[in-house]
């Protein structure tokens, strides 16, 4: 098991390295960093001066190697727009985004697991159809639109919740629901499908033949087997959550990494973008690894492989 984790960690490092390289080259191809630093309407000589001063006239590969070397030493560079070091800027925003991610994932699971189980146990009944309707709406409704509907209802009409900001816990309620509802349908459909398959398995009949109460049969014997694919999906959905948080944080002016990413793209703040991309990719790889470890714990047959 430890060997397996170490192997996966090694792989994670390689993935992060590849992502950082791709991001670096893509960002450099998307615009001239020298123009961004020199500012709008700068003279050609100034731009050339900036290019030479920052070493931007060297080959991209050399620049990437320099960036990588600096990053590995813990020097993440300086923001072009904020004029401060990137590291404190990014890390100050990270907790908000992580909190939003965890809250929305928790919300999504809290909604989708009971709904998925109910839909499977009462398959083809009105409960199942209602769950399907909730899922379809969640999948079809763009999350920014759903977020605006929430704002209209809870902030403007009912005046229950603040429109934007990230000062109190109340500021997190609507972003959590908007982002969680965005990923919940996939979980729900997967749990429903998994539960329906598992409930017809021979070992469920064995469990019933033992005289176990229905809740033990469903929650101990069936759900444990049905959630295995859900854990794998969780990692993928977290990727969606991180992507989705750019939109949601911008709508609710939630002071997180997503909002910072939006700002740095707007201001062509390459060093910040580069670090955000790297950070998110590392997070994503680590989450995938955590999902794999959780799966190995849930399904003993995977542990051997």
């Amino acid at each position: 098991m430890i060997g397996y984790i170490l192997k996966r960690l090694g792989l994670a490092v390689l993935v992060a390295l590849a992502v950082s390289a791709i991001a670096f080259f893509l960002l450099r191809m998307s615009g001239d960093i020298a123009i961004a630093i020199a500012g709008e309407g700068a003279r050609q000589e100034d731009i050339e001066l900036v290019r030479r001063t920052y070493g931007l006239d060297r080959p991209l590969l050399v620049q990437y190697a320099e960036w990588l070397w600096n990053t590995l030493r813990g020097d993440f560079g300086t923001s072009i727009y904020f004029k401060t070091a990137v590291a404190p800027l990014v890390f100050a925003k990270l907790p908000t985004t992580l909190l939003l991610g965890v809250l929305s994932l928790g919300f999504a699971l809290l909604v989708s697991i009971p709904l998925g189980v109910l839909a499977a146990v009462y398959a083809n009944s009105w409960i199942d159809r209602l769950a399907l309707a909730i899922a379809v709406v969640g999948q079809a409704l763009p999350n920014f639109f759903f977020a605006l509907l929430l704002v209209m209802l809870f902030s403007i009409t009912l005046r229950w919740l603040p429109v934007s900001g990230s000062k109190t816990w109340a500021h997190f309620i609507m972003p959590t629901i908007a982002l969680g509802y965005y990923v919940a349908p996939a979980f729900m459909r997967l749990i429903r499908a998994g539960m329906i398959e598992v409930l017809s398995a021979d070992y469920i009949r064995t469990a019933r033949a033992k005289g176990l109460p229905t809740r033990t049969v469903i929650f101990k014997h069936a759900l444990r087997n049905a959630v295995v694919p859900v854990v794998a999906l969780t990692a993928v959905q977290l990727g969606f959550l991180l992507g989705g948080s750019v939109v949601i944080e911008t709508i609710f002016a939630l002071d997180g990494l997503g909002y910072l990413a939006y700002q740095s793209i707007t201001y062509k703040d390459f060093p910040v973008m580069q670090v955000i991309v790297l950070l998110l990719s590392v997070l994503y790889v680590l989450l995938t690894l955590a999902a794999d470890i959780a799966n190995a714990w849930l399904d003993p047959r995977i542990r051997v492989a």
Partner: protein
Amino acid sequence: MAHSSDIVLEVDGLSVDIATPGGTLHAVRDISFSVKRGETLCLVGESGCGKSMTSLAIMDLLPKAAKKTARRLAFAGEDLSRAGRSRINALRGNRMSMIFQEPMTALNPAYTIGNQLVEAYRLHKRASEAEARERAVFLLGKVGIANAAERLGQYPHQLSGGLRQRVMIAMALMCGPELLIADEPTTALDVTIQAQILRLLVDLQNELGIAMVLITHDLGIVARIADRVAVMYAGQIVEEGPTASLFNAPRHPYTQGLIACIPVPGRTEPGGRLGVIPGVVPSLVGEVRGCSFRDRCGKATPACLDAPPVRETADGHRWRCILENAA
């Protein structure tokens, strides 16, 4: 009635209907039998004759689409058709248990053998984890599993098919049941393992005085271990009687056909053709009238279009045929 206290399972007029897109499938049609303490009743017949549906109906494990009706379905004198869900749950896995035919899939892959062995015992006997594990180790030893204590921590995928079936048997015996229903417990296993498992079942049954319903299509097994045999065809019991009487003097043409199909060393020519019953089992969808075997029966007459009478001899040998003796 002193003798009735010995009757562990009483099935009277049991029918199972399954709703299918093509109409109602009459999987089990008005069957009756009973099993006494320490007795082995073998239910034989070909695939789809209703053997498994009968056992699932007794255990209240029928699929949702299947509906059962019975004049009386009683366990140890208690009418199961009137028992509620919680009463059924209190009985099954406890005083009546079942061994399934799929050792590879009948155990939950996510839990250890030990976990799955102890849960029914802890639930029904309100025993502690330690007591239940001790019982599990004892029974695993009894079904011939070495290093039983270490096996408790293993998962089903780490065991062979033969071992899993032994675990299933031990699991069914955990609470010391009065009734054991074994649905083709050896079908999925190698022939050598089959013999071991059967011997084991018979030994345990004799030792513990369990009433056993063994479902099989293997007449060789039946001849060796059954006290009484019920032959099922197209959802009905067409013949039932003491094992010796049924094998020596089968009365129903279907039973005669089945017995004729058994290859006998010395009598069946090597390389020669084995016996076959011509034709196929009739569809059980919709109304089934008259004798269901008539289309395959060499002795059928127009009278077979009506429901055949049930005939009975003094030793409790019963069969459903217009003929007194088809031989």
